[in-house]
């Protein structure tokens, strides 16, 4: 049996003989003894010396044992100081009074040494138990504060990364409500050099800090590649590869990524594991579900990754609505899910498209008991291209050493055309010329249009008139993927020439393809018109560039850009 540790014990007893006897007994048991002859003295001694345990006579002059016990318990606070009443009271009522007053046990007179020792031991065990509990509580509280602080720091970094895009653009509305300290759903938006908009809504496995850690590398890829002019497919491939490489095996990111083109009035969609998004066509009231056709990011190896996207047409005013599964999974007090049906009902009931977002928000608030996950919703509208004003990109170099008189030619052949997008690289090259930077959007749009024409209509031989309606669109992109997959021969040549002119300079872009060409005269007869879905984007090229001309039966396109340097 474990030996009793020596304690400091206060003996409060008014009878001198009894006090002497008890002190001797307790001292012989190895403890240090403090004495008091009445209640008031007992409280005073306790206040000064903080004994571990108190033996308290019930009846004492000046202040009786009950009163003294209450005061001592109050002084002790959270710490357990056991009080053993010394009493020859026999009535049960009196005994009960001892307990109410804060006594923990009794010892009857005449004092029995064996029983006293046993009671002291038992009370000490309780005392130490309480001390342990308090210590652990304090440790837990400290730990908790520490973790909260870590999360706060992480949140600050995360916010900078996750929200540095163009979420405040006029055509975007969004709601994010956090389950824990911050919302781990990722909502990114950025303009491409051509003035298109990339949007990504992502939901990592788990939530809070561990989920958000994967978000930062993902956001870097998104912003970096979007700014350089990379398309959806390439950006997704890179994001998938990165997450596959860095995340642990059981972590991944469900995501929906969009490319909204105001120029072409289309939305390109890739959905990996997210709930259905919806394309709302205002004119017909139709809601096209944008369902998940892919696995989430970070699951498949780069070789197995499927970057095929879906393209839908849009009219001005149409909206794309995306949500994270936190919305569907919101539960009420009875553990019922908000569910897809309720969402569909809200769609059906809505009269004013502008209010839909707020209506859903309201319905969630009314429904919600328990948030079970981060909730994110975003609505992106298609504005007229003229209303879209992406911010001018910022460059850090001075321009003293930029190239002003040069030309370069590229030929991209079969195998390369299948897997390589040269546009970001070509754009970077052109942006070395400072004078061209203010027109980077227009240049990129024109380059992209010329290249895609050369590849799709020229080399792949796709019929542009297919793109006259939504169904035709789908067929067009199916054919495109199939023919690209099967491509063996063919080429696209890109020639760039920069020459000084006056105080500025001139850029000539010429793109040639190995295709069959087209009836240039017929296409030129059509009035310059920005609304048509089909056509070889000829209108766009003629509007954005200068002196656009086609030769070699349509296989060669040429366009110019000029700039002036103001003093």
């Amino acid at each position, binding site marked *: 049996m474990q030996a009793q540790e020596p304690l400091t014990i206060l003996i409060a007893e*008014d*009878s*001198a*003989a*009894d006090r*002497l*006897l008890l002190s*001797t*007994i307790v001292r*012989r048991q190895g403890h240090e003894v403090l004495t008091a002859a009445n209640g008031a003295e007992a409280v005073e001694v306790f206040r000064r010396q903080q004994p571990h345990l108190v033996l308290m006579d019930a*009846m004492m002059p000046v202040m009786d044992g009950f009163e003294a016990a209450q005061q001592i318990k109050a002084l002790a606070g959270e710490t357990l100081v056991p009080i053993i009443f010394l009493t*020859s009271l026999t009535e049960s009522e009196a005994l009960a009074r001892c307990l109410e007053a804060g006594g923990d046990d009794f010892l009857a*007179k*005449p*004092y029995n*040494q064996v029983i006293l020792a046993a009671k002291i031991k038992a009370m000490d065990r309780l005392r130490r138990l309480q001390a342990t509990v308090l210590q652990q509580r304090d440790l837990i509280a400290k730990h908790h504060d520490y973790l909260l602080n870590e999360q706060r720091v992480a949140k600050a970094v995360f916010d900078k990364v996750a929200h540095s895009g163009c979420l405040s653009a006029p055509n975007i509305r969004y709601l994010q409500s956090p389950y824990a300290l911050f919302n781990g759903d990722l909502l990114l938006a950025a303009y491409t050099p051509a003035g298109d908009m990339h949007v990504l809504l992502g939901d990592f496995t788990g939530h809070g800090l561990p989920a958000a850690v994967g978000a930062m590398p993902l956001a870097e890829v998104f912003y970096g590649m979007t700014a350089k002019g990379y398309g959806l497919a390439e950006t997704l491939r890179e994001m998938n590869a990165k997450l596959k490489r860095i995340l642990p095996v059981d972590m991944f990111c469900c995501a929906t990524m969009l490319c909204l083109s105001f120029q072409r009035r289309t939305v390109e969609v890739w959905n990996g594991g997210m709930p259905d998004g919806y394309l709302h066509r205002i004119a017909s009231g139709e809601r096209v579900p944008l369902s998940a056709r892919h696995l989430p990011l970070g699951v498949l190896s780069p070789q197995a990754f499927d970057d095929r996207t879906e393209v839908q047409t849009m009219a001005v005013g149409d909206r794309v609505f995306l949500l994270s599964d936190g919305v569907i999974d919101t539960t009420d007090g009875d553990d019922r899910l908000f569910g897809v049906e309720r969402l569909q009902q809200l769609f059906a009931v809505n009269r004013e498209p502008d209010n839909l977002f707020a209506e859903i928000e309201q319905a969630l608030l009314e429904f919600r008991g328990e948030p079970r996950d981060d909730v994110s919703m975003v609505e992106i509208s298609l504005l007229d291209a003229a209303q879209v004003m992406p911010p001018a990109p910022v460059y850090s170099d001075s321009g003293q050493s930029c190239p002003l008189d040069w030309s370069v030619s590229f030929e991209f052949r079969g195998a390369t055309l299948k897997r390589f997008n040269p546009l970001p690289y070509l754009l970077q090259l052109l942006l070395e010329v400072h004078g061209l930077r203010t027109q980077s959007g227009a240049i990129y749009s024109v380059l992209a249009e010329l290249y895609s024409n050369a590849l799709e209509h020229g080399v792949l031989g796709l019929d542009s008139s297919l793109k006259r309606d939504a169904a035709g669109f789908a067929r067009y992109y199916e054919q495109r993927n199939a023919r690209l997959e099967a491509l063996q021969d063919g080429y696209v040549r890109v020639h760039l020439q920069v020459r000084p002119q006056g105080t500025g300079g001139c850029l000539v872009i010429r793109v040639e393809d190995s295709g069959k060409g087209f009836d240039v005269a017929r296409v030129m007869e059509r009035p310059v018109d920005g609304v048509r879905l089909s056509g070889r984007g000829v209108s766009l090229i003629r509007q954005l560039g200068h002196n656009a001309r086609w030769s070699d039966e349509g296989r060669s396109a040429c366009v110019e850009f000029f700039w002036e340097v103001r003093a």
Partner: protein
Amino acid sequence: MTDQHVDREVLDALREVMEDSYPDLLDTFLTDSESRLHQLQKTADAKVLAEVAHSFKGSASNMGAVRLATLCQALEADARNKSPAEIVDLVADISSEFADVRPVYEDERQHALTH
């Protein structure tokens, strides 16, 4: 005489616990008891009587004076209900009992000091 009045086993235990302080304990008890007895004889207040009797009962039982303890218990329990005459009688009994056991404790004290 000692069997009903003083429990010898209690004294043996006390002697064993107190060791060299045994005489001090005996002294303290005798002094305390005298002053308590004095208080009992002087007061008529039922509350005070009960408190003093209670206290006296406690020490008496600790010191093995079993009959003395019992008498004090009787006084404590009924102080309120007894007539002044009855109280005087009880106090006299207590006083007499104390006088009887006193020599026992004095003997003990003497014995401890010389051995």
